[in-house]
């Protein structure tokens, strides 16, 4: 029952993977170091900055606060898993179009949190966008354009046909987690 190495099976960005992970390794470490998915960033390592945000069974979580072993049997979406066939999602395009990226370090986490928001609340108010991104810090303080990018993605042509934010993540949560 107790062991140093743990065998897990996870689906990462649509691909099933059987892995041996160290019991004490976080999901973040395994994604980056074992699977080479370095789009997910390590920053504060204490659940405050959101740079490591990924979707686990459709829910946005801090991958630094989750053991890889806890992800056994789960479906994980990282920033690498959003684009399909080399085509960015409307949300990603919107980040580019709005110039929402400065140094870029927080952006994968921002995009994942925004994706989670739009998956469950396709037309958020500005307040809801702020609430939805409250767990993600940008040290460049580029919040205005980040919020604008999410707003634009939510009101863009894609959104009106319902495919601006293709949910690749199941639908574990009902709408408006961000609402208070």
């Amino acid at each position: 029952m107790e062991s140093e190495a743990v065998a897990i099976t996870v689906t990462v960005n649509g691909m099933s993977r059987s892995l041996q992970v160290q019991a004490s390794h976080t999901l973040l470490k395994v994604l980056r170091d074992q699977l080479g998915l370095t789009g997910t960033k390590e920053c504060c390592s204490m659940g405050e900055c959101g740079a490591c945000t990924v979707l686990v069974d459709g829910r946005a979580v801090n991958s630094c606060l989750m053991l890889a072993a806890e992800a056994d049997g789960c479906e994980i979406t990282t920033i690498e898993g959003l684009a399909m066939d080399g085509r960015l999602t409307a949300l990603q395009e919107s980040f580019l179009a709005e110039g929402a990226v400065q140094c870029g370090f927080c952006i994968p986490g921002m995009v994942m949190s925004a994706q989670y928001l739009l998956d469950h609340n396709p037309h958020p108010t500005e307040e809801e966008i702020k609430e939805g991104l409250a767990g993600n810090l940008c040290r460049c303080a580029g919040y205005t354009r980040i919020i604008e990018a999410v707003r634009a993605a939510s009101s863009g042509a894609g959104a009106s046909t319902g495919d601006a934010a293709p949910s690749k993540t199941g639908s574990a949560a009902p709408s408006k987690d961000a609402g208070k």
Partner: protein
Amino acid sequence: MPGDASPGFGFRLARPRSMEEALDLLSRYGPRARLLAGGTDLLVQVRAGKAAPEVVIDLKKVSTLHSDIVQEDSFLEIGALALLSDIGRDPRILGFFPALAESVATVGSIQIRNRATLPGNICNASPAADTLPALLVHEASVSLQGRGGKRTVALSDFFLGPGKTVRRDDEIVTSVRLPLPKGREGAAFERLTRRRGVDLATINLCCRVEQSGMTRFAFGAVGPRPVVAVDPSGKLTRPGLGAEERDRRIRELLQKTSPISDVRASRDYRTAMLLVLSRRALERALQRLAGGEGA
């Protein structure tokens, strides 16, 4: 990844499938074991060197523990593994215990609430834990299971001090129970932070008023453990209560608090804001009691 090299990250992980197995592990390792539900406090503590468990026992595969919220005749039972994000949007929680929903929505961030559990927030026993004031005014109780059997402890008797509870080393919290309202009532949660998002509370508190006039307050971050203060006189709910008498009565209830100065606020500021936030919570609780706006 520097974090994982910190002391304590050499723990072994146990993933028991049954309660019996989990309790066996707990009694074998005692204080050298830590229980894992959401992990949002535990992993931070391990990384900071504040916890160095030999074994971490992941409770999520224990067959008898669950994440359901079950309504019985006289109470609502929240399974130990229910996520804060699910609790905060459950229609019964929103309907019966809107102040709890308000407080749950302030814990950490969305990412944290998508992992964190109520027993985790309770057993971490931070004096500033945001869910505690609402749970306390609603007279929540905690169900525990040990090898010797089960017991239920009123949440008001659960906390001994920062990080310290009456949970024994060989016990596991299986659920949190909230008695259903017996009549009309209203409750509201208030919180003071330095910034709005993802901050620990400088003060948090909850007020609950019942039609009988019974008024309960619970205050967080103003003592070594959350403080409950009750005014059964009915005077705080009386229409036409003057501001002066209201403040005098609230101040009496606040005598049980013992705010200190720390990185988040001075003692004086906390003392002043306790009154302000208590007024607000009382006002919103009364609005809800009256069935008016205030949600």
